[in-house]
């Protein structure tokens, strides 16, 4: 959960930056950015817990 939370913070930051700076659809940005969460979460998990 701790590693997932770090990934969630990264996800939320990326989504906020994209929504602020680009003129993309909100649903598209928030859905596509779930890949950021998956990447960070599994990256941290494989480095620290696997």
């Amino acid at each position, binding site marked *: 959960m701790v590693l997932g939370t770090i990934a969630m913070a990264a996800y939320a930051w990326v989504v*906020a930056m994209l929504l602020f700076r680009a003129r993309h659809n909100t649903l598209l940005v928030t859905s596509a950015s779930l890949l950021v969460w998956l990447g960070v979460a599994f990256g941290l998990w494989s480095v620290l817990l696997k």
Partner: protein
Amino acid sequence: MIVKADISALKKASWLEYSIRFLFGGLMTVLAGLIAKHYGPELGGLFLAFPAIAPAAATMIDQHAKEQKQRAGFEGHTRGRKTAALDMFGTVWASVGLLAFGLVIWWMGSSHSACLVLPIATVVWLGGALSTWELRRILKRQKTTHHRAAPAQFPAHKRK
């Protein structure tokens, strides 16, 4: 801004919107439980912080802000997007509270009863979330003060 609870805000969203949030949140909790059962609690726990309701919540916030602006006769797309972005910035700060919640359970969970650990972790979460809000407010105030003070520090002969 002082943090306060506004119960009237609950009326602004429809039952469908609440249902969508509960549905995605509930499904993710079930999925996290199933993953924990099959692949172990470490991998399952990872999914307890999956932003399952974020896309739906941000889209609804965007829609509400856009509609409000359009009722006033404006286009509203930019306002909607930026309101959703601010909500997401709030999530970044709120993650600190959730991180503290997870750390308390990780630290105390194996040696104490869940009835004791969960309330303590919840109080720590609330403290963490409010502290980060206060920290953000202090940092913002310092930044504003610094920007206002900056022109006075600029040498007078170089000012136009």
